[in-house]
């Protein structure tokens, strides 16, 4: 009788242990698994998730395309602006060069003028500049002062004012232009060279491959002049 009871008791105990064991394992598993994560889903749940993600993907894709299109638009606009910018900058540089506001270099001649028995006066320089321009000079500087269209050359007492700055003999005149034409222009019979030598001043002319002339330093102020 007792033996039977013991067997029954033990069996019941074992079964109870198994039951409770399985129960706790199951409870813990359910508590700790994230039911909403994709790795743990059943098939129909996965189908739903796929639908949702597909829609999200398509929306995002459309948005990305839209943004890319806008970016390309902006890029072309910027490129156009840059082109316009470049054109303007080039034009500005050219205009400045023509005005004489940039450093320039090129082939040309260098003239050295000195006084022998009579002083060099402004009129000599003015004549020289005129002759050079006639001979096709593109840039002229006297003692490193750039001669532009509104440059004045005047006598003051013992020295000459160019661009409002004092200069003295000897004068180094740098010219950029076709050196052949320039040489023949100055050296022509009855031209500036003869004139100067006959009047007691000395002149020496040299052809140069590269003549560097600095820019006009001052400001060009417009007070009365307006664009028509």
């Amino acid at each position, binding site marked *: 009788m007792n033996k039977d009871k013991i067997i029954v*008791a033990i069996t*019941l105990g074992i079964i109870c*242990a198994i039951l409770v064991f399985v129960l*706790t394992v199951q409870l813990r598993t359910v508590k700790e698994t994230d039911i909403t994560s994709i790795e743990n889903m059943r098939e129909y749940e996965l189908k739903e998730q796929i639908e949702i993600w597909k829609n999200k993907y398509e929306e995002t894709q459309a948005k990305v395309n839209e943004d890319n299109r806008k970016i390309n638009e902006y890029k072309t606009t910027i490129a156009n602006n840059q082109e316009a910018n470049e054109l303007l900058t080039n034009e500005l540089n050219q205009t400045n060069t023509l005005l004489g506001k940039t450093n320039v270099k090129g082939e040309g001649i260098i003239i050295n003028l000195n006084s022998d028995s009579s002083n060099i006066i402004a009129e000599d320089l003015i004549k020289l500049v005129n002759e050079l321009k006639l001979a096709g000079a593109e840039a002229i500087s006297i003692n490193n002062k750039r001669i532009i269209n509104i440059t004045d050359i005047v006598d003051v007492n013992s020295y000459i004012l160019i661009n409002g700055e004092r200069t003295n003999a000897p004068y180094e005149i740098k010219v950029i232009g076709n050196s052949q034409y320039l040489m023949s222009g100055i050296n022509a019979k009855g031209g500036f060279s003869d004139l100067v030598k006959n009047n007691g001043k000395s002149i020496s002319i040299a052809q140069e491959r590269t003549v560097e002339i600095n820019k006009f330093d001052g400001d060009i102020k417009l007070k009365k002049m307006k664009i028509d």
Partner: protein
Amino acid sequence: MIIVVSIIIGCIIGALIGFNTPIIPYTFSGYLAVAIIAALDSVFGALVGLEKKKFDMKIFVSGFFGNAILAIILTYLGERLNVDIYLAAIVVFVGRMFTNLSILRTNLIEKYSKKKANKSK
């Protein structure tokens, strides 16, 4: 008496082991759940058997494991066929649990009222 003690000891041991083992993958937990319900139904059936003095150990143990295994097999089959067979198993087991519980309840209450009637006599 010893039976009650052994049951209690069994529960404690099961709980201890259960808290310390690692959790199982989520897909298996589906099968385990149905097996638990089948086992619980078998336990209730045993309780009713005890009440009617018709308790047979062998039937209880075989029912316990047999029901659990059958439930797991049916769930697996249902998953393969894409038919939720486990639902039917749950309905049946829980239904039987309710039936057994009501039998128990009826018997106990009858016993209790009989005792009261005898006492007052």
